[in-house]
């Protein structure tokens, strides 16, 4: 164990207070957090370490054009996020800012590309039936495997496409597991962002009817089978609301119009209204097939969110706060251990429960044993920034050019 497990419990009188605004926050040093991490110097050192990691992961030193001011701004921004997480001890709050900026960057970059190349927000290119992303990869995995077979046979595997996306997915999954959905996914920032907009005015303390939490897994099974049998990525065509942020097929006939009506309805309900009113990530938690996919394959990564039975007072704050409904509370009867909150495999390591728990009972660990808070945050931020480095600097450049009238 390299990190010091320095635990300081809050005063007893702080325990009954609203756990989302903990008064004794500065005293909740988490397992795996350096006790000195909240100091300016230690926070700056960790921010510098993350800047170095981002530099090595994203900067192409052989090409000066790829190391201009947008890249430097992005690196400075993400190391600033690392500093704020360390200094304030709040993981999810600052992660959400980082995540929302990633989503913004992706939308700007993709839409600008579409408008610049095709002059239309619709995808009409026959060569690419629908935009392809990791969500499509999971919900039509059998099709992808078949396409890879064709690509390898024809030698076309070197081109950017599902195979490269598959490698990106595998690398990030090995390094981060389920955390992809809260630190890397360039769409997740949308519903995460909307779920925070109304702050205290949103509904809280919402419990899900039993069985509903498995909806994304049901969506995944159904679309994998249907996509394979129709040889089309049916989730993308019929259900994925994220196409609205990128590009979708021209609604030229009745079927396309029906598809547009269905995924636009899903968008309004699960990306906008649901998150705004409930304060939850409704799309990620209840629809996205990739979240179910990642809950299965993410287990190959050792990072976990763990509840310490000795510290938990069963106040339920973690369960109410989880934006993806991933903490199950067994009925209060039974043994003390049985009544502990249970982190479901769907947890995507957002850190909200870690921040909210008034006794510091929840922490990032390796395999539920070794405290690993700092290690996890640095890894997640560096990888998220590396993926964001593929499009956020371009989005910055485009935005500044548009604002100053410089064009693309």
């Amino acid at each position, binding site marked *: 164990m390299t990190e010091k497990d320095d635990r300081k419990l809050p005063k007893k009188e702080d325990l009954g207070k609203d756990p989302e605004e903990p008064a004794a926050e500065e005293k909740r040093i988490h397992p795996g957090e350096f006790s000195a991490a909240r100091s300016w110097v230690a926070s700056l050192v960790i921010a510098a370490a993350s800047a170095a990691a981002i530099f090595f992961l994203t900067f192409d030193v052989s090409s000066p054009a790829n190391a201009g001011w947008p890249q430097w701004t992005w690196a400075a921004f993400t190391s600033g996020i690392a500093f704020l997480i360390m200094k304030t001890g709040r993981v999810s709050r600052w992660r959400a800012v980082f995540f929302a900026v990633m989503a913004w960057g992706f939308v700007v970059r993709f839409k600008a590309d579409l408008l610049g190349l095709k002059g239309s927000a619709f995808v009409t290119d026959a060569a690419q039936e629908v935009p392809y992303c990791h969500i499509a990869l999971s919900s039509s995995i059998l099709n992808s495997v078949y396409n890879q077979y064709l690509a390898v046979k024809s030698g076309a595997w070197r081109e950017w496409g599902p195979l490269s996306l598959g490698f990106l997915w595998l690398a990030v999954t090995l390094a981060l597991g389920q955390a992809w959905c809260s630190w890397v996914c360039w769409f997740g920032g949308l519903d995460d962002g909307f779920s925070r907009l109304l702050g205290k005015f949103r509904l809280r303390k919402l419990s899900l009817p039993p069985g509903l939490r498995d909806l994304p897994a049901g*969506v995944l099974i*159904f679309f994998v089978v249907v996509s394979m*049998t129709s040889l089309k990525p049916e989730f993308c065509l019929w259900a994925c609301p994220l196409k609205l942020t990128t590009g979708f097929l021209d609604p030229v006939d009745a079927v396309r119009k029906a598809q547009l009506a269905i995924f636009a309805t899903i968008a309004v309900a699960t990306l906008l209204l649901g998150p705004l009113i409930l304060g939850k990530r409704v799309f990620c938690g209840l629809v996205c097939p990739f979240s179910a996919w990642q809950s299965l394959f993410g287990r190959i990564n050792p990072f976990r969110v763990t509840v310490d039975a000795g510290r938990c007072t069963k106040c339920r704050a973690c369960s109410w706060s989880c934006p993806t409904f991933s903490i199950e509370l067994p009925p209060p009867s039974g043994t003390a251990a049985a009544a502990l909150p249970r982190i479901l495999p769907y947890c995507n390591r957002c850190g909200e429960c870690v921040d909210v728990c008034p006794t510091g009972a929840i922490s990032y660990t390796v395999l539920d044993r070794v405290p690993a808070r700092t290690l996890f945050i640095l890894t997640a931020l560096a990888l998220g920034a590396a993926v964001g480095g593929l499009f956020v600097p371009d989005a910055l450049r485009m935005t500044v050019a548009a604002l100053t009238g410089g064009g693309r």
Partner: protein
Amino acid sequence: MALTGLIAEGLGLGLSTGLYCLGACAPVLVPYLLAEEPRFRRDLMVVGQFLLGRLAAYLLLAVVVGLAGARLTAMPGWVTGPALLVCGLVLLGYAFMRGAPRLDACARASASPAVRNIPLLMGFLVGINLCPPFMAGLVRLATIGSVAGCVAYFTAFFAGTTVYVLPVLLAAPLKSVERLRAAAAIACGLSGLWFAGLGLAKLLRLS
């Protein structure tokens, strides 16, 4: 034509077009299979019942076409819409029953033999769907002109296509994955919606 010749021809048609059958059967059968108890005998029962349902549909049509023979001028295309719609509704009902086990009616229904035999009904409904290979088989049947010949031809066609349906059993070991059965019951509901939508579209002649 000799019976053996008809059998060989039916088998050939089934083997060459069976992937279509997997396409038609998998969205119904895979979620249902995954939602059921994790016991190999039950899995075999489910697939067996489903195949039996399909065979019953094929034989029924073989007898009807055999009797009508060349007098059959129009294929019963109108069957597809209602069959898909009923299949979708059955799947939806099953998903609802699995999703609300605490409701009295659902608990009673799930213990009833009718519900245990749902795969038989679903196999039948999927079987009478007019997919392209099935249509090709029907056209050929109309020219055979004898009930025995038609039955032999379609039984062989069934055997050929079954080779492609059996691999769905490979999905069964997945049931050990935590919560997968609950998720599969939800997938059954989505399949139900999908098929009901397809059936409605056919009935309303939208596709």
